[in-house]
C-alpha cells in the first residue's frame, strides 16, 4: 500500500556513510502534528484559569486536585496505546484516535459549563487521548529514523512540539486582548488547530510497513518479556528512580521566585524561559547524544537538574540566579525528554517498539506523579528550604544508585 514509506526506513548506514542531511519527512510531519496540537492544548491551558474563575465563577483549587489524579491515572493508558498499536501494526491509526479524542474535548468545554465533575471528565478524556497517542507516535518516529540519528530525530520533534507550546498562550492572549473574552470562540479556535493537526496526521503521515514475521507475535506476554532484556529493565528502573527524584516544575518556579527575591511577575516568565532553552537545545543535544551516548546524555541531564536544586538553596540571588536556573532547567528537558525515547528505541525490536517505549514512559510518568504527590504532603509540614534539601538528597541518592545500576553496556 504505502510503498514510499518503506524507502524511508531503509535510509540506513549501508549508504556508504553518506548521512542524509535532514531528518526523515515523517518526523517533520509528526512534529507539525504535535506543534498544531500543542498550540491547541496550550491555548486551553492558558485560558482555563481565567475561564474557570471568571466565566464559571469556580474555585481553582478543586480543579488542580482533579487534574493531578487524572494525570496519574491516564499514564497507564500509554501501555494500552503502545500494546494495541504494535498488535494491529497500525501506530498511525492509534495515534489518530488519541489526537482525535483530545481535539473533540475542545468542543465539549462550552457544553458542560460549570460542573466540576464534567470539567474533570473532559480533562480526563483529553489526558486519555494524550496517553494513547504518545507511545505510537514516538514509535513512528523511531521506526522511520535510522538508528544513529534517533537522538536528533526526537530532538527535532520535541523542538517543534515546544514551539507549539509557546505559541498557544500567545494565541490566547491575542484573542483575549483584541477579539473577545467570550469562551466559545477561544475553544473553537483551539479545536480548529487540533483538527488541523489530526488532518496532517491522517492525510500526510504514512504508516511505515513492518514485515510480519511469523515467530515475532505481539502478545501481552511478549510485551512483558521485554523487561527480561537487561538494558530495557535497567532503563525502566533507572528512569523511574530519577522520576521519583524529580519535583514538579511549578514547585521549582515558586521556590526560585522566593529564593531569588525577584518580582512575582517572573513566575509567568520562568516557564517560557525553560521552554525556550528546551526548544533551542533539544536538537543539538539530541545530535550530541547520538555521538556521545544517549543514556549518558539522559544521566547528564539529571545531573543538571541536581544543579538546579542546588541553586534553589540560593548561592547567588536576583535575576542572575533566575536566568542560570531557568537555563539549566531547560537544558535538563532538552537532555532527557526526547533522548530517553531515542535510547529506549535502541533496546526494543521493531515489532514491539510502541509497547517497549510505553513501558519506559509509564514508569517515568508514574514515578513523577508519585513524587509530586509525596512532595505535596511534605510541603504541608516542612519549610521550603527543608523541602529543597529533601529533593537534593533524593536526587543525589537516585543519581548514585543509577550510576551503579546502569553500567555502560546499555549506554548507547
Amino acid at each position, binding site marked *: *500500500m504505502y510503498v514510499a514509506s518503506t524507502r524511508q526506513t531503509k535510509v540506513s548506514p549501508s549508504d556508504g556513510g553518506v548521512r542524509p542531511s535532514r531528518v526523515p519527512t515523517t518526523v517533520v510531519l509528526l512534529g507539525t502534528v504535535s506543534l498544531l496540537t500543542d498550540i491547541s492544548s496550550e491555548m486551553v*491551558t*492558558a485560558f482555563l*484559569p*481565567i475561564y474557570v*474563575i*471568571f*466565566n*464559571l*465563577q*469556580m474555585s*481553582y*483549587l478543586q480543579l*488542580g486536585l482533579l*487534574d*493531578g*489524579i487524572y*494525570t*496519574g491515572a491516564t499514564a497507564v493508558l500509554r501501555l494500552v496505546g503502545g500494546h494495541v498499536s504494535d498488535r494491529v501494526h497500525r501506530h498511525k491509526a492509534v495515534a489518530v484516535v488519541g489526537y482525535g479524542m483530545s481535539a473533540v474535548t475542545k468542543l465539549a468545554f462550552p457544553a458542560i459549563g*460549570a460542573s466540576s465533575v464534567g470539567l474533570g471528565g473532559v480533562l480526563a478524556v483529553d*489526558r486519555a487521548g494524550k496517553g494513547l497517542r504518545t507511545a505510537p507516535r514516538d514509535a513512528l518516529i523511531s521506526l522511520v529514523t535510522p538508528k544513529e540519528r534517533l537522538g536528533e530525530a526526537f530532538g527535532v520533534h520535541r523542538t517543534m512540539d515546544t514551539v507549539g507550546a509557546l505559541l498557544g498562550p500567545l494565541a490566547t*492572549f491575542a484573542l*483575549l486582548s483584541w*477579539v*473577545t*473574552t*467570550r469562551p*466559545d*470562540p477561544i475553544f*473553537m*479556535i483551539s*479545536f480548529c488547530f487540533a*483538527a*488541523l493537526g489530526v*488532518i496532517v496526521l*491522517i*492525510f*500526510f503521515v504514512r504508516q511505515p510497513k513492518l514485515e510480519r514475521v511469523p515467530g515475532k507475535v505481539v502478545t501481552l506476554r511478549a510485551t512483558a518479556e521485554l523487561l527480561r532484556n537487561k538494558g530495557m529493565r535497567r532503563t525502566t528502573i533507572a528512569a523511574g528512580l530519577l522520576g521519583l527524584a524529580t519535583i*514538579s*516544575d*511549578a*514547585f521549582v*518556579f*515558586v521556590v526560585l521566585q522566593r529564593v531569588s527575591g525577584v518580582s*512575582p*511577575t517572573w*513566575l*509567568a*516568565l520562568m*516557564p517560557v524561559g*525553560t521552554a525556550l532553552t528546551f526548544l533551542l537545545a533539544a536538537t543539538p543535544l539530541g545530535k550530541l547524544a547520538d555521538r556521545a551516548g544517549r543514556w549518558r546524555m539522559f544521566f547528564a541531564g539529571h545531573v543538571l537538574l541536581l544543579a538546579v536544586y542546588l541553586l534553589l538553596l540560593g548561592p547567588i540571588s536576583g535575576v542572575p540566579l533566575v536566568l542560570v536556573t531557568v537555563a539549566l532547567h531547560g537544558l535538563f528537558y532538552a537532555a532527557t525528554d526526547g533522548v530517553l525515547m531515542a535510547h529506549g528505541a535502541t533496546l526494543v525490536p521493531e515489532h514491539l517498539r510502541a509497547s517497549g517505549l510505553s513501558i519506559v514512559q509509564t514508569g517515568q510518568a508514574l514515578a513523577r*506523579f508519585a513524587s*509530586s*504527590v509525596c512532595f*505535596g504532603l511534605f*510541603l*504541608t*509540614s*516542612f*519549610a521550603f528550604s527543608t523541602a529543597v534539601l529533601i529533593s537534593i538528597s533524593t536526587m543525589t541518592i537516585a543519581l548514585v544508585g543509577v550510576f551503579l545500576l546502569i553500567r555502560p553496556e546499555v549506554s548507547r
Partner: protein
Amino acid sequence: MKDWFVRNRIVVGVTAMVVVIALGVVYVVATVRDQQAAATQPGAAVASGLTFVDNGGGQNLVSTLDASGKRTPGSLKCLRVYTAAGTTVCLRMGLPGAYEAAVYVDGKEVRTVPLPGTPSRARVSASGKIVSWTVFVTGDSYLAPGGFSTRTGVLDLRSGELVESLEAFSMTIEGVPDKRVNENYWGVTVASDDNTFYATLGSSNTTWLIKGDLKARSMVTVRQSAECPSLSPDQTRVAYKKRGGRLGTWQLFVLDLASGKETQLPGSDGVDDQAAWLNPTTLAYAKVQQGGAPTIYESAADGSGQPRELVAAASSPGPVA
C-alpha cells in the same frame, strides 16, 4: 476507494484544512458580531447603584447600573474590579499569562502592581485607602499536581507600602503560633479603622475565618469553615461563604460579630464569590446559573426572602463609588 485515497491524499488533506480554517473564521466573526448587543442589555434597578464587570460583550468592560436600571458601559477593562471612596482597583492581564493590579484614584492611574497569578478577589477599604487582592498561583501548567496556591496582597495607599503576601505576617491558629509554610490566604476585607482586617486561611483541608492587624503584621483565627469574608459598612456583621449545601456546595452566611449568630441567605446555594455590601442591608454576589454565564444577584442581609437577579452575564459586583 483505498487507491483513490492514496492517489488524492494531498488534495483531500489540503481541502480539509482549508474547510476547517474557513469554518473557524466564519464562526468567530459571527460570534464577535453579536457580542456588541450583549453589552448594552438593561439590568434591574438598583437603588444605591452597582458596579460590575460585563461578561457578555466580550470586552470585560467595567459597567454600572443606576437606580432606574440604566446600564452604562465604561472604558476600563478588568477581570475583577472594586470601587470605594473614589479608589478603584482593577485586576487585569498585562502580558500573556501575566496579571497586574491597577489602582485608580479619581479616574487617574496611580499605581500598578504585578501579580503572581490569576486574579480571584479584589477589595478597596471603605475609606479608599487600603487595596487588597487575591490571586491563584498556578505554576506553568494546570496539570501540575498540587501546583497551585493563593497569594494575597495588601497595598496601603497612604504610605505606599505593599505587602506582597499575607504569608509574611505571623499567624496564630486556635491559640497556637503557627510555623507551617503551605498555607493559603484569600479574600481580604478591611475594617473602617484601615488597620483591622478579616480574611480566609486555608491549611490542609481546613479553612478559618481570620482576623488580622496590618500594623502589627499579625493574624489570629476566629472560627472554622468560613471563606471570603466581607465586613458590613456598620462593622457589625461579616458575610462569608461556607460549605453547607447538599453536595458540599457553598452558601452565603452572615455572622453577627457581637452575638455570634449565623444567618443563612436563602437561594445562595452554589455561590463562589466574595459577597459585596451595596448598603447596610443588601449584599450582592455573582453566581453561575446551570450551564450559563455568571449572573449578579442581590440578597437581603437578614436572610429574609429569595435573591433578586440584577444583571445577567456579569460578575464582580460592588457598590458605586
